[in-house]
């Protein structure tokens, strides 16, 4: 196993793939921070699932496996899904969470049916589409890796440039709009960027779990800091770490699908954060509570000792009075 690991690491192709996973994790973590703070985590998941039929249709129409085409297909069906969610919440009494659930399952169901059809058709075996379910980073072509890396870097660059605007729109869109900031435009942009992050992540992580790579690093990062800038940097780092770990482990250990391993890595970071993060973590909360209790007890204890002392004196006096009575 160690030798496979070694071969893997030294293979320049694999180094590129690792680099791609790193950048993908970085981009997902950064854009995911905004998705999470805007309470759209579930939307990210719906968009990822909605991408599947888009990818299948792109393949059926073109007959070739090309990440560029798949991205277009995925974006189109992601946009359709968003419209669907809007239309349902707007024209019926159904609330957003239910609308998300409906759209997610309908699109995903259609996607799975199409995928099964493709698998059973003539060129199904070469399609490698089954990899899109749970992801297989090692199966990425070099050109795909470049695309993933560049797109992720662009996402990070846009978030850096528009940090101030995205922050205000995420915190208080009403106030931002009153101030003349183009809230609608920025919200659309954030949504589009979420779709893009999801879509570029699909080949490496898979439609089923790609949303987890978007949200989990952000949630974990929130535990460590109360400053948005720091949180975003941390989320990017956690995402990058998860991406690299996932790709490494899945590549070297009997070709496990990358998605689940990546998500497990991200979840481990999340668990560590929940337990050990200073301030918000469980250990730190427990310690604080214990310290408080001790302090309270100490002052209360001192009080008790004083009372006891008094009582001793009283009983002494009582004794002595008894004695004198004798």
């Amino acid at each position: 196993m160690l030798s496979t690991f070694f071969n893997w690491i030294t293979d320049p192709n694999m180094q590129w793939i690792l680099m791609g996973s790193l950048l993908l994790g970085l981009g997902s973590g950064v854009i995911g921070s905004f998705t999470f703070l805007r309470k759209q985590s579930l939307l990210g998941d719906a968009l990822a699932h909605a991408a599947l039929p888009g990818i299948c249709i792109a393949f059926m129409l073109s007959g070739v496996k090309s990440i560029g085409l798949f991205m277009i297909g995925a974006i189109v069906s992601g946009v359709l899904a968003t419209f669907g969610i809007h239309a349902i919440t707007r024209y019926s009494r159904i609330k957003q969470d239910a609308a998300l659930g409906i759209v997610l399952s309908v699109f995903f169901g259609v996607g799975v049916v199409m995928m099964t059809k493709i698998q059973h058709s003539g060129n199904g075996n070469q399609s490698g589409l089954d990899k899109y379910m749970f992801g297989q980073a090692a199966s990425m072509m070099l050109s795909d890796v470049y695309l993933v890396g560049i797109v992720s870097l662009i996402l990070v660059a846009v978030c850096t440039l528009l940090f101030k605007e995205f922050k205000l729109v995420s915190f208080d869109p009403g106030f931002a709009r009153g101030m003349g900031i183009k809230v609608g435009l920025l919200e659309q942009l954030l949504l589009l960027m979420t779709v893009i992050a999801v879509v570029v992540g699909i080949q490496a992580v898979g439609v089923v779990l790609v949303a987890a790579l978007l949200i989990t690093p952000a949630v974990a990062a929130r535990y460590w800091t109360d400053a948005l800038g720091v949180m975003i940097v941390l989320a990017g780092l956690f995402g990058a770490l998860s991406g690299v770990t996932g790709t490494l482990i899945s590549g070297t250990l009997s070709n496990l699908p990358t998605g689940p391993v990546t998500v497990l890595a991200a979840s481990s970071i999340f668990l560590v954060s929940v337990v050990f993060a200073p301030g918000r973590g469980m250990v730190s909360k427990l310690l604080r509570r214990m310290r408080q209790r001790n302090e309270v007890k100490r002052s209360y204890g001192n009080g008790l000792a004083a009372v006891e002392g008094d009582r001793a004196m009283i009983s002494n006096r009582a004794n002595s009075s008894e004695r004198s009575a004798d």
Partner: protein
Amino acid sequence: MTTYPLEVNRLTVAYQKKPVLNSVSFQIPSGKLIGVLGPNGAGKSTLLKAVLGLIPKVEGDVSIFGRPYREQRKSVGYVPQRESVDWDFPTNALDVVMMGRYGHLGWFRRPGAKERDIAMECLGKVGMADYAGRQISQLSGGQQQRVFLARALAQSANLYFMDEPFAGVDATTEKAIIQLLHELKDQGKTVMVVHHDLSTVQEYFDHILLLNGELVAAGPTKDIFTPNHLQKTYGGRIAMLQDFAAVPAGQV
């Protein structure tokens, strides 16, 4: 001919089909404290939001200092209802106040030392300077309200809209806020405040708007704050209304 800080003409707003505000028209005078009163669901917040262009209007027009709102954004400040944001957002009090400067900064530019100084000064004005670095979820409700107020001050506007700035604040904070509003007024600024406590209306406001789906009445407090108008605004439900308005306005 004078231009009013705010002039609203036949404004109609609807969320679904049923209009929430029906053909509302009024002007507000310059350099005054203006109270907006009405029962829950009367459309007070809706009025503010429609004027600020946060929700689309079905009909009517709004002009601010004689021009459309689009051209006047920098002269308008806004304090939303406190519940309108998630206070667990990762940011501190100073940072929130600095957001008041974003409109003056323009695209891409980051707030710097100058914005920080302005924000600190505004936090000081609302008595929150000591809390500048505090995570916003660790502020009490009244303190959060003050942070919002400081953010509006940082906008250095000429016309302010405030949605229930007194909701959930203690008597001291309320006094401090009203003091601040008077200072704004003394600088010639106009402040429009959504308010619920009828017992302080005569004390606080120069001018009031009574709202109940439509405009019941608008004008100087002493003319408009009458049992008759209140009855029309709130319906017959509150017998006490009479008592509020029965205080001879001249004495207040």
